[in-house]
């Protein structure tokens, strides 16, 4: 049978999603095979969770049930890198590191994260997982997020329908932009099997300018001054702990001469204590730049506020966490106003849930939101007891639920994972 898909029984601990044990693991090698898996699952009433390299499989709420893990590890390969058009078409299971490795020799990149290593042999997240999880990227200040770079997508719906949207060219307004709906959908709307991205030329020179200040608010002033200047940095990041200094990092990329002048101008804005680092590879970036705010076991909050509020928000996160008795790392795009608060160490879940609600109230005053990106099951439970969830209040939730119903009426894909009843 052409549609036959390798499917194995599973009892392995690795085949769990937020402690929910999967029964089977399917490893389709093509879009058609992925469609066959989903069709079968729908017919049999089985629930499916797509899986890349499982680096962000805990994101969202724990799914109600997982029967099949649809693993994309055999759905790999660069289909076409049209270097002259700055476009790449790639299968969804392809590791991001492999994609970066293909683009690097052509001096191009997918402008997401400077963390993405280009060394061989590293297995990081996959293309599909990155689309579905939508990790906030450092380069969003200069280049937007994956939603701004994704120009075409192939997706399989729960009933096995194979759909394409967008296309192979950067400029294209034919039809609805389904790709954007899949960004951050955590596998609940469909399984991405192929994606097309717009690329950027890799910069020929990079410098990082850093400074330590006392408070988030001061960091915010610096970010405001950088916004007023015309230096066009690629990233404006912040790093802070419960107490101590707040570090601001400004990434300047471009041609060598330009980068020298711009990094010096940025250093003048950041003040006397600013330091300039010439970056020739990821190893020259500081540790905080290279690691996420939370380890896998911790609770990760994603706080999005208007840019002018980002600095003060760092102070608020520090103060409220201290009151809740939680150790926090606050890191993210000070420039764009998207921060991560990583809660770690030993803590009780009740104060964490209360902290989330407190932060939500404060953020809401400025049209800001707090998403619990990942957390242990008991934190989700504590949020539920308070009548909220990881996603918090969403005005358009009923519309999102209708959308889910149109795409996946039988709730085959990761039921319970997303906002509200999705």
């Amino acid at each position, binding site marked *: 049978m052409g549609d*036959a*898909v390798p*499917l194995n029984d599973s009892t392995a601990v690795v085949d769990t999603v937020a402690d929910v044990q999967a*029964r089977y693991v399917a490893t389709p090698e093509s879009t058609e095979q992925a469609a066959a898996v989903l069709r079968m699952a729908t017919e*049999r009433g089985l*629930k499916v969770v797509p899986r890349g390299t499982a680096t962000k499989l805990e994101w969202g709420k724990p799914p*109600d*049930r997982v*029967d099949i893990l649809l693993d994309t590890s055999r759905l790999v390969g660069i289909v076409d890198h049209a270097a*002259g058009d700055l476009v790449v078409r790639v299968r969804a299971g392809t590791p991001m590191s492999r994609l970066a490795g293909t683009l690097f020799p052509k001096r191009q990149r997918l402008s997401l994260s400077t963390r993405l290593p280009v060394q061989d042999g590293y297995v990081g997240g996959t293309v599909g997982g990155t689309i579905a999880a939508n990790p906030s990227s450092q380069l969003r200040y200069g280049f*937007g997020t994956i939603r*701004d770079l994704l120009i075409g997508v192939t*997706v399989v719906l729960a009933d096995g*329908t194979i*759909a394409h*949207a967008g*296309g*192979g*060219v950067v*400029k*294209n*307004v*034919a039809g*609805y*932009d*389904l790709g*954007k*709906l899949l*960004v951050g*959908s955590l596998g609940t*709307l469909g399984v991405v099997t192929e994606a097309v991205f717009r690329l950027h*030329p*890799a910069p*020929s020179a990079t410098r990082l300018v850093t400074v330590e200040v006392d408070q988030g608010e001061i960091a915010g002033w610096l970010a405001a001054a950088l916004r*007023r200047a*015309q230096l*066009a940095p690629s990233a404006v990041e912040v790093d802070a702990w419960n107490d101590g200094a707040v570090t601001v990092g400004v990434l300047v990329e*471009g041609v060598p*001469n*330009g980068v020298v002048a*711009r990094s010096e101008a940025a250093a003048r804005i950041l003040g006397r204590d600013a330091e300039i680092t010439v970056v020739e590879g990821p190893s020259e970036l500081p540790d905080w730049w290279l690691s996420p705010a939370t380890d896998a076991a911790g609770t990760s909050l994603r706080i999005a*506020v*208007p*840019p*002018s509020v980002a600095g003060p928000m760092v102070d608020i996160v520090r103060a409220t966490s201290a009151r809740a008795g939680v150790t926090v790392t606050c890191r993210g795009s000070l420039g764009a*106003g*998207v921060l991560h608060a990583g809660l770690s160490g030993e803590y009780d879940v009740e104060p964490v849930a209360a902290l989330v609600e407190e932060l939500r109230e404060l953020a809401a005053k*400025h049209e800001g939101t707090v998403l619990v990106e990942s957390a242990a099951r008991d934190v989700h439970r504590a949020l539920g007891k308070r009548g909220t969830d990881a*996603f918090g209040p*969403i*005005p*358009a939730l*009923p*519309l999102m639920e*209708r959308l889910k119903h149109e795409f996946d009426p039988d*709730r085959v894909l990761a*039921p319970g994972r997303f*906002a*509200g*009843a999705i």
Partner: protein
Amino acid sequence: MRIRTKAANPLSPLCTKLRSRIGAEKVVDDPTELETYACDGLAQYRVQPGLVVLADDADDVQAAVQECVAAEIPFVARGSGTGLSGGALPRADGVLIVAARMRGIKTIDPDDVCAVVEPGVINLDVSRAAAPHGLHYAPDPSSQQICSIGGNVAENSGGAHCLKYGFTTNHVTGVELVTPDGGRLRIGGRAAEYPGYDLLGAYVGSEGTLGITTEVTVRLTRDPEDVRTLLAAFETIDEAGAAVSAVIGAGVVPAAIEMMDALAIEAAEVAVGCGYPEGAGAVLLVEIDGPATEVQHTFEEVQRHCAESGAFEVRVAKDDTERALLWRGRKSAFAAVGRISPNYIIQDGVIPRTTLPEVLHAMTELASSAGVRVANVFHAGDGNLHPLVLFDAAVEGEEERAEEVSGAILDLCIEHGGSITGEHGVGVDKAKHMPKMFTADDLDTMQRVRCAFDPAGLANPGKVFPTPRMCGEVPRVHSADEARNDRRADEATPNGAEVF
């Protein structure tokens, strides 16, 4: 005094209701006045709307939509009516809801680098209002002096500078809309992102089929420190194409890189006397912007690539006045073609940039074998072609031939892996071409989105999709009990061996 007799308008009851609800002066049913709304920028399609509502605010829009919903009457949104795909083409049996009077700029916020505007605000007015703060609104369609932000959001409009800065979708962070069931909804806001599905991403570019925008929050962009512009003249299109490839291949991202061919240059010359170099088979207009040191380096590189690719003349603008002069020919190009041809079709297609020379040759062949002329103006950096197919409607059969060539150009775009529209949208004009680019399943999946927003199919029906999709019943909200049942159903699952 003139007495007009008019046939009973089937929308009369709706008209009466609406008038009492929002005020008589905002509801137009006078046939002469209705006729002025019969078309948008694509004048070959004309339909006199059943009724026109001139909304002053979101309440008016909502009232109009609610009355339409109650009476099951379709409605179409309109901004400035400059659309080039018939997106705002009215329905004779429906209501045209015009947002053009909603022109308030509510906020220009230099700290959050954003603006909050009503949908009828003219694109350029946002940049004008932001200018004192050294900011501007980046998407700059050539129609920016007349088109509305609401229309831009609906079309996901682009402009010459979107190669570097992106399209409308990359600059809108929030909208308020009246949903097709008459509700009010806010998606997004001032922050860069919001939890949940990216509905905004689907809404931008949906051509008025998912609701009517009543407020838009856009990101503003810092003015660049330096801008440099050059015009390079080449003897052939191939040389100009090679220059574009060389520039992009060198890792340069110009703010804009535009191309015009001999016929387009000729038209612009007649219309505005732009004084482009004589004997040019093609000109390239290249703009580099950004931090001064970067611009200086990059601009030199661009000049070198132009020279190496065979440019016989390169003009560099010394100041803003000279820059405006260089742009003048390009900006006038669409209208200018009217000077050398009584009629023309403005086509909008996209190809991978690297296939440019090949596609242009094929296009020339198409045109000459059909005996029509095609002038070419395009956003060369992103392969967005705007072939202008010239014809004389007075000459028997010429219009049909022009239509054929215009359609065949889209086929060429699709064959080369491109798109049937880069910025003008599908509207009513290109709905028939959608199946060439998308499968039935693709289109059906897109329409699932539509069913979620507009199950009754009242918002701008007949646009974008060649055939409507029947929407199922509105779902019940999934309950906690059902979730528990899902978990219990665990026991009933078959084993692996049986499945395959």
